[in-house]
Structure formats: structure tokens, C-alpha cells
């Protein structure tokens, strides 16, 4: 295990950014955190979570796929893929780290592979930082995530009042820590921090969310549940929950004709939008009820069906904090889970 004094953290960031691009959660003018490349003078955000999750760095909101040139009947395909430099993401929370695993199952391990995602994923080194001060909206424990353990990345990190502690988990992590201005620390250095964090975890109001009603094979049971109508009735149909969600993975492919070239890009899309499934021939999800149901069924039933029972939610609590009308996955789980 290694450590560095908090007062010297800028030296560490500097040393990392000399090797690779370093993404760090930083507060913007309005106090909202986002992962941005570190440069001299930027301070790490004290927020528990960024507004948009770290998935943005692997599966960005907008990404060029390919360009075209059209000249009468002739068409030319122009490669739009950009090479990525290796990069480090510092301060990913354990919930977000778990979300990478969920996205990996879709983009990395399913055929055909997503070369855009893989290129970024392979070039990243993830430093996961344990949470000492989780919020009341955190329910990652329900999905088996231990916020004290900082697992799921290449390096696990802990902080206390004075120091940051690091432990490499993978070879990539070891390579990162190599040559950084860190001091040695004994192996149990973070134990007290973990203990304190675990004590806090016991106090979280949503810690024992009951998921037994959900999971693979529950489609028939839950699809026609009358509660969907009530739950979705005030949903505005905006995309806030999907865009702040670390595990939402749906996208749209769009063309933009700029006159000189036609750009085909992929961008995040939301199943909450009315045009998500709109065809010229009809609309299989005509009201907000169907769209709302799709989102939560996907996270709690369909995804587990497709991926060995794993839920597509990590309990980060972003949707609890950001939904304009405060409807969220916890209310869905509780309402439907407590029925009968």
C-alpha cells in the first residue's frame, strides 16, 4: 500500500498528468461536479458524485462514427475514428466502477464488439475512491457494492483527513503507481477508514432495499402490474434520469448534413422520450406508462435476464437527486416490491 499527504496531492496529479491525461471530478461555476482533464490549479470536487457519471469517458454523450461525402450518385466513406491517448480517471466511486462492469457486458463482451468503447476502455486506468460520507440517497449496498472497499478499478484508494492511500489491484494499476511520488504505507493503513465507512453504511436509510421481486424471469409477473400507471403518471418524459444514470446505455444514431460532409454520430438517447420507438408505421410504446415501464423493467428484469441475473443499477442515487419530480428507481422498487 502507498500513501500521499493531502497537502501534496497536486504533486501527484501533476506526476500522473505528465504520463497520461488525468480526469478528475471538478466543480464547475454552479457547484456541479464533472470529470474534466486536470490542469494546474484545479481542485478535486468534494461532491460525492459527478452529475454525469464516469461512463461519459467510455461511452460519450456524442461521438462521431463515420463521415460521408456525397456527390450525385457517388458516395464516399470517411473514417471518423479518433485515436485515444491512454488516460487515468481518478476518484471514481465504487458504484460508478461497478457500472463499468455492467456496460462492459454490453459493449465489450457481447458480439459484435463495440470498437469505440473498447478502444477507450483498454486505454483507461481507473482509480476507485472509497466513500467515507455517503448520502441518504445511496443504496449501492442493495446491489452488493461495498463503498468502503473501493473495488472494481485498477487502483483502490481511500482518504482520511490527512492522506490518500492507494493499493494497486491490476497490472495496469501497478504500472500507474510505479514512479509516482508516493510514500510506502503498511498494508492495514486504510482499515480504520474502512471501519468508519462501514459504520456509516449501517445508518443509510435505503440500505436494505428489497430486490427479491425483481430479477431474471420476472417479466410476465411484473409487466402488467397495475402500479406502472400510477408510478408513471407524473413523469415529465424528460431524459434527466437516463442521462445522469451510470448504467443507461441506449443510444441513437443520427446524421448531420453539414453541407460539406455528412457526419454520422452516436448520441445518448432516452427510452423516456416519445420518439424513442416512434416508427412511421406506429408506436409500440404510445404513452409515458410504457416508456417508464421500459426503463425500470430494463434495469431490473430484462438486463438480469440477458446477463446472468445482474441488475443494471448500481444505487448511485443520481436519479433520486436529479429527477425534476422525484420519481425514481427506489420508489419503483418499493412500490412494486411491497405489493401483495
Amino acid at each position, binding site marked *: 500500500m502507498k500513501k500521499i499527504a493531502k497537502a501534496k496531492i497536486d504533486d501527484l496529479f501533476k506526476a500522473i498528468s505528465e504520463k497520461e491525461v488525468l480526469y478528475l471530478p471538478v466543480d*464547475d461555476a*454552479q457547484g456541479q461536479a464533472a470529470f474534466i482533464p486536470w490542469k494546474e490549479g484545479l481542485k478535486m470536487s468534494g461532491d460525492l458524485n459527478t452529475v454525469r457519471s464516469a461512463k461519459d469517458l467510455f461511452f460519450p454523450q456524442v461521438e462521431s462514427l463515420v463521415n460521408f461525402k456525397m456527390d450525385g450518385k457517388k458516395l464516399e466513406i470517411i473514417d471518423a475514428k479518433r485515436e485515444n491517448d491512454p488516460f487515468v480517471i481518478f476518484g471514481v466511486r465504487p458504484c460508478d466502477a461497478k457500472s463499468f462492469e455492467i456496460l462492459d457486458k454490453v459493449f465489450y463482451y457481447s458480439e459484435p464488439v463495440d470498437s469505440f468503447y473498447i478502444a477507450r476502455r483498454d486505454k483507461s486506468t481507473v482509480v476507485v475512491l472509497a466513500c467515507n460520507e455517503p448520502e441518504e440517497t445511496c443504496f449501492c449496498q442493495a446491489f452488493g457494492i461495498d463503498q468502503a472497499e473501493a473495488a472494481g478499478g485498477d487502483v483502490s484508494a481511500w482518504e482520511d483527513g490527512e492522506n490518500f492511500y492507494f493499493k494497486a489491484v491490476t497490472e495496469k494499476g501497478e504500472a500507474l503507481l510505479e514512479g509516482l511520488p508516493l510514500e510506502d504505507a503498511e498494508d492495514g493503513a486504510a482499515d480504520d477508514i474502512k471501519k468508519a465507512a462501514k459504520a456509516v453504511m449501517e445508518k443509510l436509510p435505503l440500505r436494505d432495499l428489497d430486490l427479491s421481486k425483481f430479477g431474471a424471469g420476472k417479466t410476465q409477473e411484473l409487466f402488467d402490474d397495475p402500479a406502472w400507471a400510477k408510478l408513471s403518471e407524473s413523469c415529465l418524459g424528460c431524459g434527466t434520469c437516463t442521462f445522469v444514470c451510470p448504467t443507461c446505455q441506449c443510444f441513437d444514431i443520427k446524421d448531420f448534413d453539414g453541407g460539406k460532409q455528412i457526419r454520422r454520430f452516436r448520441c445518448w438517447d432516452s427510452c423516456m422520450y416519445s420518439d424513442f420507438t416512434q416508427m412511421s408505421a406506429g408506436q409500440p410504446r404510445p404513452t409515458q406508462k410504457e416508456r417508464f415501464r421500459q426503463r425500470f423493467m430494463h434495469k431490473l428484469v430484462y438486463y438480469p435476464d440477458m446477463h446472468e441475473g445482474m441488475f443494471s443499477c448500481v444505487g448511485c442515487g443520481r436519479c433520486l437527486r436529479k429527477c425534476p419530480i422525484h420519481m425514481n428507481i427506489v420508489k419503483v422498487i418499493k412500490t412494486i416490491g411491497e405489493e401483495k
Partner: protein
Amino acid sequence: MQAVIKKKAKELLECGTVDRVLGWKAGEFFYDLTPAVFTTPEEIDKDFVFSVFSGANMSKYLIEETKKEGKVAAFIKPCDSYSLVQLQKEHRIKRENCYIVGIACDGMCDMGLVREAGIKGATAVSEKDDKLVLETIYGEKEMPKEKALLERCVHCKSKKVVDFDEMIGENGEENPDCGRFDEVERLEAMTPDERFAFWRSQLSRCIRCNACRNVCPACSCEKCVFDNPDSGIAQKAAASDFEENNFHIIRAYHVAGRCTDCGECSRVCPQNIPLHLLNRKFIKDMNELYGFYQAGADFETKPPIMNYTTNDAEPSVVYQRGGSK
């Protein structure tokens, strides 16, 4: 207040004045109230909440609710009532299908501001004098209530419920000196370069979730131009700087003259972009150039953008006013 409102809601249902009640439903915590329709007194007893976190403007829900069979009761705060009137002016709400209970309001709080004040893990709240006392998993914390007030409440333009069938609490007055244009003036006084930098830093953070549009009572088009594939601008994501500017200019422009300054757009923005500053610029300009106008303040006055006089200012007035070179 909550007790009176709940009693009223139950009464309206029980005596058959209305079939449904639109209100705020309790969530997991004290602050995450969801707009909901209540149909029985039992539901109201169980889940109806009115507190300083009942910020959501109910007017827009009335568009759909009043299309349905039967009558719906809605509890309307002063600022919501302007949207309510404006929507009636646009013939979007069937007034005969709703029963409006006006409620006096001392300002609504925002959980985002509580969190920004550094209070984490809040699980319960109470009010003591001018303070919010928050129970958190890290012990009891307190903060001045005014620090947690929504921006629109800090600069509350009116405490008057414009349209109601009955009123709970004392109806208030308009407050012309609320200072809501101060921030717009501050921006106007900047150089264009500074303003450009300011708005880039704000709008570039937009994630195009459309929350500002979907929550807006004035944004009630059946199909938005930004959702229409034939418009050429339905790009879903802010794929370039231009798209960000375009979306926000058009969003604010399309509600100009109809925007009551209810502040919902800024309240719901997950990125805390001060969107009300765009809307207020239009309001301020219209006030200055075409005479004072408050959307939703009455049923008669035409909005300036649907009106004209023969001696209006020429567009070149922009070259002389607003902002140093």
C-alpha cells in the same frame, strides 16, 4: 398549513365537489415529493404532503387532467397561478373541469441548495425561527432557510394568487421591487466578450435532457420542433456549440410573452444552468420597449409579441442600448 390543506382536499373529495385531487405525494425522504393524483380521502391521509419542498408547479398537469372526465382540484401557489391563468388564456386548461384552491406561500426550498451548503445525508427537517434544522446521518445540522430558498422565491415577484375558487391563507400582493432583473442587468453591463464567456461556460454544460422544456408550463406544444425530424434541428444531443446556443435561444424565445417567470426551468436543471436569466432577458426587454407586461397576471392583456404599435422602437435600438461595446 399542511393540515389545513389536507383537510380541504379530503372535504372536496368527500362532498363530491371534485373527483380527483392533484397534490404532492410523500417520497422516501422529506424532500422528494412527487406530483400525484389522489382519488380517496385515505390516500390523502396517508401520502399527501405540503411543505417547503412542494416547489413543483402543478399548472401544467392540469392540461391533461382537465381533459379527463370529472373535476380535479389543484392547490396552486401564487407563482403557479400565473401559469394557470396563462394556460387558460391559451385555451389549454378547461377551467370548468378544475377547482382551484389558492395557497399562500412563504417561499419554497431546494434540496440542491441544502446539499451545496455542505449538508450531507439529510433524513429529516424541521423549521426553527428562520432556520432549517436538518437531521442527517452525520448528526444534526442547521442552515438559514433563506439560503435554501429557490432563486424564484428569493426574488419573489408576487404573493398574489391570480385565479382561484377559494383561498387558504391570506392572499398577498405583487412585489414589483423584487429585484429579479438585477442579475440580468449585471450581465448586460458586461462586455460582449464577458457575456459570451459567461454563457458558454453555462450552456456548454447542458446535457440536453429536456427537463427545462418538459417541465415548463408554457412549453405545451403537442410536438416540439426539437423532436421533429423534419425540422433539421432534432439532434437529441448538443453535438456542437451552436446546437447548445440554438436550443436555449429558441426555447426561451418560444415562450417569450407567455413565460410567467415561474422559475421551473432553473429549478429542474440537473446542471444548475441559470436558464431563468434567458427568459428574464426577454421579459425585461419587453417591459422596457413595449410597456410593463406580466404574463398570466390577467385574462385580457395581449402579450407584447402578439401585439404592436405603429411607433415601436426599430430593431436598431439594440445597437444603442444594452451592454458596453
